[in-house]
């Protein structure tokens, strides 16, 4: 296999890691106003992801850095072309990240509800906009001979991309609800479980519509297999949720997101950013990639470091494996209760 193909796969893996992990973080954030009935429930929800959200977010930084290194042309065209959506994602991630660390620093209700708003908006925007961005990548955007994006914001807000945004948003809400059902206890756990099924059905409808549309635009036999597996995993997850099998339900949405994103990359290959202006201007794994020297070096780095990262990140989840219920939350914010 060509090195540039290896890196196309690795970058897909990084994005899959990002969406599978931060997907439920976004979901928890978006469900904050829906599921929690009082402040301690809100805090219970936030604390399920408290120790891990930052590690989950690093997946996107690694995906960005790896794209810069392995496909400089892709990085340059994508980031300068999708300028305003990315700016919005940046602003959202800034206020969201700070909400985790700053919300509990003051007891005032006004202070906390402002940070709750930051957490909610900071979760909704990226959950929607990443879907818009990826739908546009797969669909293709106007790119000229100089590899420059020639569209504008409205080019990106086409119906297909907007549907993509709705799909990621609903999938992440479902994924977050599944996660909360798995990680909380008591009343919150049951409400999260029930909600996950209801939102999950809507997510399934939107996702199937989007994946069929994607298949018609850019798919081939391989991507069809991925999309079918993704749909089946989602149905399986919902059935498991209905039966109260929370671990399997969460696994279901996890696999759905992983396989669906993988399918999008399969549909994309060998392009990395197709041009709607002319197929000759499309960015491909070949014409957008770095040199073999850099790719070889980066392959070694990835082969050595990625398993280590997975190991200690997995260990963190094991350390914080306990379910969190309202009574685990100290009454005073940020206080040491021991």
């Amino acid at each position, binding site marked *: 296999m060509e090195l540039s193909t290896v890196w196309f796969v690795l970058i897909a893996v990084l994005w899959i890691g990002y969406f599978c992990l931060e997907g439920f973080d976004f979901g928890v954030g978006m469900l904050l106003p829906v599921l929690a009935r009082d402040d301690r429930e809100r805090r219970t929800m936030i604390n399920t992801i*408290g120790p891990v959200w930052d*590690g989950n977010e690093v997946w996107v930084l690694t995906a960005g850095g790896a794209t810069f290194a392995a496909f400089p042309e892709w990085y340059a*065209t994508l980031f300068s072309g999708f300028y305003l959506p*990315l700016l919005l994602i940046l602003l959202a991630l800034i206020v969201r*990240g700070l909400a985790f660390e*700053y919300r509990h620093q003051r007891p005032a209700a006004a202070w906390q509800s402002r940070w709750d708003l930051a957490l909610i908006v900071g979760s909704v925007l990226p959950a929607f906009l990443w879907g818009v961005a990826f739908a546009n990548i797969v669909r293709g955007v106007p790119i000229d001979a100089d590899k420059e994006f020639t569209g504008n914001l409205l080019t990106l807000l086409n119906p297909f991309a907007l549907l993509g945004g709705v799909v990621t948003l609903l999938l992440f809400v479902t994924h977050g609800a599944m996660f909360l059902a798995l990680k909380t206890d008591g009343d919150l756990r049951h409400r999260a479980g029930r909600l996950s099924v209801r939102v999950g059905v809507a997510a399934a409808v939107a996702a199937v519509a989007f994946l069929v549309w994607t298949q018609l635009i850019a798919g081939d036999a391989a991507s069809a297999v991925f999309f079918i597996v993704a749909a089946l995993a989602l149905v399986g997850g919902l059935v498991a949720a209905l039966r109260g099998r929370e671990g399997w339900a969460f696994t279901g949405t996890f696999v759905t997101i992983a396989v669906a994103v993988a399918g999008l990359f399969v549909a994309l290959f060998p392009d990395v950013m197709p041009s709607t202006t002319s197929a000759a201007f499309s960015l491909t794994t070949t014409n957008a990639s770095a040199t073999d020297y850099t790719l070889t*070096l980066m392959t070694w780095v990835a082969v050595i*470091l990625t398993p280590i990262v997975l190991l200690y990140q997995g260990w963190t989840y094991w350390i914080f494996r306990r379910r969190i219920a309202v009574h685990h939350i100290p009454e005073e914010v940020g206080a*040491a209760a*021991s």
Partner: protein
Amino acid sequence: MDSILDIARWQFGIVTVYHFLFVPLTIGLTALVAAMETVWLRTGRPEWLRLTKFFGKLLLINFAIGVVTGIVQEFQFGMNWSDYSRFVGDVFGAPLAVEALLAFFLESTFLGLWIFGWDRLPRGLHCACMWIVHVGTLASSWFILAANSWMQHPVGYRFNPDTGRAELTDFWAVMTNKVQLVTFPHVVTAAYMTGAAFVLGVSAFLYASRRHEADRDMYRKGIRLGAAVALVAGLGVAVTGDVQGKIMTEVQPMKMAAAEALYDTEESCAPFSIFTVGTPDGTQEKFAITVPCLLSFLATGSFDGRVEGINDLRAQYEQTYGQDPGAEYYSPTGYTPIIPVTYWSFRFMIGFGVLTGIGALLILWLTRKGRSPTSSWFTWMAVGLPVVAVLGSSTGWIFTEMGRQPWVVFGLMTTANGVSPGVGTAEAWISIVALTLLYAVLAVIEIGLIVHYVRKGADPFVEPPSPSLRGSDDDEDRPMAFAY
């Protein structure tokens, strides 16, 4: 500011200087908090756990802003500087990707473990988490500085005329770039100095406060620790800065000439001006305090060394770069940075750095052998020290980045050619305004929080749990030791 270039440059300056207000502080503080926790583990003395938790909290407030503003750093290369990204991605992207994979994962994961792990991890392991976070910050510094050093002095690459890109040929050369080998210790010692000055200043404030009189002994320890580390680190900053000056003179002579506003070559014994009244562009000097021969020494290591002036260098650069057939990647109107900026930032960097070192030394001396100074000038000097140290870091970066202009990659690509050609000024304006406003609001919030918690002082001692890694069956119902 009507061109995308100006807006993109201002944005880079604003968000980067802002990001780097927090970075040196957190690099230094992770080491100091880890050291405090280690001392507590070794001695079991409660005040060290209280200091660990207190400075740990202040560290987290700063770390959060450092993390979220760091995301902007990675994205804006592609957003505002897409031609730069295309040109250097093969070389510059690699250290960035390694930084994320090696350093960011370590920092974020183990910081999460440290924050929430008080009742989940054995004590030694909990302390190790903060040390690992610190190693993560050092690894992060290493790779991002390697990338920056490559922009100052490109090595280990070749220019491919077919693709018009710089291509990596020797990663080891990039990692052992002589600019990198001196920049890394310079930046890291400056970070230790900044973090230590922060511990010193905050401790001194609480030490002088009547409300916290009962804890004076504890805060005195904070003062001593901060002052000692700041002094040692400050000496490191001076020594590495001195070496760096000589390497800079060798690889970027224009930067040294611009630092001194030296227009005409001095054959020997070039003076260093401490203060000049007159036209700062150097055309006319009205009054100046100078130290004879010092510039020669700073630049070459010898008091009668030859220091080249701006005019000669400009002629040389025109010779070297102006005639190059591959000049599409650089079309500088001149080869000179903005002299008043380089002249003054160079002086402020040195001045603030020296001031921090002297302040630390003075405080160490004033508190020697159990002495407990109480005068308010002592307190104000100590409280001002972290501000001075942070300003030293900022002006240092402003100097080294502005002194490289008009190049973005020295000798290879000018800043003007690195900007995104497809981005409109409207988009760029939205970006810079939104980020600047948000950053301003965040600054107010974060300063408010720091002031709030500093005034409050360290929490009383509470014996933390001493869990084993296996034991979580018996504590199913126990509340979390820490929760958001």
